[in-house]
């Protein structure tokens, strides 16, 4: 696992999901249904202006977790931030191949049996692959 902050280029599929990613000159295919969410950003510390009628990308940053392959090496995952409104992409976290976790369809096979003795939803596996909100950047 490593921490990065590098610009990349992303191409969309017809469905509006990232389909290909160019990093260090290599074109990777993105596995279907990458996970997408939004993280808050402290705009009141960062932005100098926020006049009415502006503000896309001020409150939150779009994050994609993609599984990449270039046909050769084993697939690996990374988190990419998409900064709006400028539309720039940056890699914010790279997972080593051995950081095994379920990505796409992670919830499919979730078993609804409760763990014995604890009121813990088996779906909490979700959290295993979710970084803490600050992880991946704090140490930079």
């Amino acid at each position, binding site marked *: 696992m490593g921490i990065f902050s590098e610009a990349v280029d992303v191409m969309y599929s017809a469905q509006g999901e990232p389909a290909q990613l160019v990093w260090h000159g290599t074109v990777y295919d993105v596995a279907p249904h990458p996970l997408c969410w939004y993280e808050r950003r402290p705009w*009141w510390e960062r932005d100098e*202006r926020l006049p*009415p009628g502006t503000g896309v990308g001020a*409150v*939150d940053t779009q994050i994609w977790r993609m599984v990449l392959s270039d046909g050769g090496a084993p697939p690996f995952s990374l988190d990419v*931030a998409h*900064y709006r409104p400028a539309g720039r992409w940056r890699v914010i976290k790279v997972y080593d191949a051995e950081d095994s976790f379920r990505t796409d369809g992670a919830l499919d096979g979730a078993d609804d049996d*409760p763990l014995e003795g604890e009121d813990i*939803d088996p779906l909490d596996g979700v959290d295993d692959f979710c970084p803490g909100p600050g992880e991946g950047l704090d140490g930079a």
Partner: protein
Amino acid sequence: MRSFVHLHTSSAFSAHFGVSWPQEMVEAAAVDGDALGIADRDGLYGAVKHVKACMAGGIDPIIGVDLAVLEEGAGGLETAGRVVVLAHGGTLLPAGTGYGALCRLISSAHAQPGNRVGLTLEQLAAGVLDSSSGKPALTVLLGPDSPVARALNGNRYLLPRTRFLKWRAAMPVGSMVVEIVSHQSTPGAPMSTAHAVRMLKLAQEFDVPAVLSNAVRYAREVDAPTADVLDAARNIAPLRALDRHEGLQRTGRAWLKSAADMSVVAREVIHQGGWGGAELRQLWANTAQLADKCRLDPVADLGWKTPRTPESQVLGLSQPATAELRQRTEAGLNRRFAGLRGEKLLAVRHRLETELTTISGLEFDSYFLTVAEVSEMIRSMGVRRAARGSGASSLVNYLLGISAVDPIANDLLFERFLSRDRSTLPDIDLDVESAERHNVYRRIFERFGSERVTLMSMQNSYRARGAVRDAGLALGMDKGEIDRIAKQLWRFSAGSFREALEEKPELRDFAARVRESRELGGSHREYDAFGTDGSELPDGTDGPGIHDGGGLDGGRRGGAQLDLLVDLTERLDSLPRHISMHPCGVILGDAALLDRTPVQPSGMGLPMSQFDKHDMDAMGMLKLDVLGVRMQSAMAYAVREVIRLHPSKEAVAAEGGHAPDAPFIDGTGAIDLDAVPLDDEPTFELIRSTHTLGCFQIESPGQRELVGKMAPAEFNDLIIDISLFRPGPMQSNMVKPFLESRAGFAAEHYPHPDLIPALKETHGVTVFHEQVLRTFHVMTGCTLSRADEFRRALGKEDLEPAVEAYFREKTAARGYTPSVIDEVWGTLKAFGSFGFCKAHGAAFAVPTYQSAWLKAHHPAEFLAGLWEHDPGMYPRRLLVAEARRLGIPILPLDINASTGEYRAERTPEGTTGIRLSLAGVYGLSGTELKRILAAQPYDSLADLRDRARLSRPILKRLAQLGALDSLHSKAKELTGNTANRADLVAHVNSLPVRAANKRSEPITGQIPLPMEDVELGALAAEHPAPGMAETVRTELDLLSLDVSEHLMGSYAPYLDALGVHRAEELLGLRNNTEVLVAGVRIATQTPPMRGGKRVVFISVDDGTGCVDTVFFTEAQEKSGPLLFGTRMLLIRGLTRRTGPRGITVQALEAWDLHDTASLPGTVEVPRTAGIAQGTGVAGIPPVLVGARRTDTIEEAHSNPRMLLGQGAVHDKQGVTSASGYTDHH
């Protein structure tokens, strides 16, 4: 993309939560939806506006509420979450059932003990059923903030299931669905897709239908930051403290998404849950199905525009309302017009017939009877009342006793008030004594039953000052700094803050700081820039997840946020903040009123509707304005004081200079003000003297100037005076030609002889709406009611062209020449839209005349009334000067002679003075006051201590103010002691803090022995007596009055050295003399001006009178921040003569009298000058002493006192006149 209906939308009327207006939401929804649901927080605050917007946008309205759920916790009922409740339409149940159930449900949510708002699960379960059919009338949406969804946090398994089962068991079958929402937050966090998946799984597991929503808070994505600021305002905490906590939205994804965007959200949920197309279709179909069930028909479900009045049995009618109204007005006709015969009587009868036909045609008969009932009820309570507004135009109102103005004699047109061409309900306004207003409300509730009556509410919105405060709070700025900025904001909307920075001189300093901070901000720029574009990320500090601003080097310091502050302030512009009781609106309906509006407790305890005045007409609600008028209280008080001092008809007549047999005084000495003849010469003499301070409507600087010039001689002159004194006439320069023609300097001009009858009373100048109506009527031949429709269209861009075309065509056809047509149309176009309704003027003129009459005949009692009820635009301290001018002694505070009121009192010299009230003493509590009054009189200091049981600080204040001097001097007389007030204060101050000692209290009923005050008789005389300056400072601090001497007194040597002119000297100066004037600010106004340039009017008081000054652009530039913030001013300017008795000063430059370094000249400012800063020993906020500030006209209208024209409305417009006819520009 298929259409999608948003069922859960919180509008801007969800205070401190929603961002967008209903019409913005509807516009967004109408793009690909055919209905929209509103669900404001805890009420239907935006519902009627939502329905209006939906009707305009051609989509179906759905109405619901986002309601708190309460659960029994450790400290009683606690909020456990929120659910949405939607009303069903009339497809399965009788129309109105669902909406009625929703109203009652919301009302019950506001009737919880301990001011909690919300419902328990049991209450909710009971409330969703229609009581008559037993079927569900409402659907509850168990969404992401419900107690069930909240249990998902921490990945618990059993708790959410237990809770879900509890809900499913409690809610009646078919009354609950699960609301699936994803704001795409961090996976596993609330509002994440993962949570949505779990909710959907629960719905499947327990076989409850699920619907999709976006829990919308704003119409557009760009509005998301505004929601953050509202979150901070709601939680009263800076954003950085809220971050990662419950209070802040998880992401900025709560906008009204398109059907396509919603489909993306739905697919994500379905995909992550491992479901497929069938589940997706089901979710989508469920949503559409619930939407269909909840579509409302405004007319059938809400009773749109269908008026409902109290039932006839409630009004005690034994015959149909039409017949009753006819019978009562007939009786009124015989009473009011007893002497009328022949043609004149026929004309009156004809008028009555027209009015009755119109009223019954509109089915408003019972409305008039209801108002008459209320009016009569108030009269029988012995409370002064007067009809105000266009209601005075109606003969029916006059005959029913609602209005005291004779519409025939005053030539008022019924069509201005009501006509068949108008579908809106008429407004009849009743003014009552302000002190009795709440009692009147309570009696109305008793009389008609609480199921038929509720108070109206009003929305209080963000204006510039409030917006900048909350924006500053969100940014975590220093409170003191924000306060200083807020104080400089004057009369502009928050939305134009940035524009104001460029233009307004008083914001110059702030604007410079904003620029400065922008330059400072440059150092942040390299990395700030990636904030939204990610272009540079040298240290990787932006991006997701950096939340704790505290230790961040990028955290802004000091002024660096000012630019952002301006933007956020603009974003908050005019958003609703909270509702409160409207100053006068009372809603009267039938027994089903509470099925049509939810109610909640008002500040005074009586229930108030969640609807405001804009909702009344749409909901067919009859609103009666019962307005508390301080002047009515002041006049009633004055009349009572007259009787108290002169308890017989003879004594009152002698004192007031009335004829011994004056019919308006009864045997007890009671004066019936409404019976006073309207032609009293001393009253008009007083008005013409311009010493009208304290008189209703005519006390402002501008009005004093106008009455001086106009010299009113009869009642109709007062009507014209009041009507001229409005923004419209002022801006259209109507005043000057009117005055010139009236004075005979200019010939009266009429565009055409046909218009002479209509315009004669105002010398050819169009002043009244009634004259506009007659002009249309005479020149086009249209009916007067049609003419009123034309008048209403004037000034409206979309409607006016049609009126102009009609006018030109008809007048040309009737043979008027093009030049006449052009001239008349020009007049109509210019004044028609904002001229004044003569009926308003006539209704206002009555209390104006009555107050002037009291001032002319019973000045001391009248001033006592003013002091007691404080109705005017000026601070009370200005009345001290007026009393001095009138030779009315101000009697000092005295522990035995003073009461809790400002009373008129006979002096040993045989004059009538005014005794200061103990109620005016700073910090004296109501209980202490009661104790003092209960045990009066006192014969010694010890007696006072023992029986009134006052705290030491209060005792000290009383001593400082001289209230104990009478006890002291009595003791001194007996002993020859020479101690002074300072010795007394020192002694009181040295007394031990009073312990609550029951034993020292005298036994009730025991007569205290009269004995010598040993204590005061033996005071050591060791302190110097307080000087005048110190005494005045004490008075200002503790009474907010400068009684012993004017507070400018101590400046006299300095002002004399500078050659400053006093107010009383100005009238003797030539026009255009350069002068220095000085004084305490008493009024500041910025009326709207022709040409849009701002003019600031500042009046200062220097102890000899008021100086009215006017600041034009250049002087504003020179004075900058002094314009609004400074209280003691030195002003250089040029005299401008405005009439035989009027003079103003056109300011050139101003200084702060306290800023000694900046002042011209080298004379040292006296040491005592600090007294006026109001930050003296007792810490009284300066505002107590300072001028009553009035902001904008809009603010004036939201302020009950201003509505009366007692504050800003008249004085602001008043000063308009200063420029309106002194030709300053």
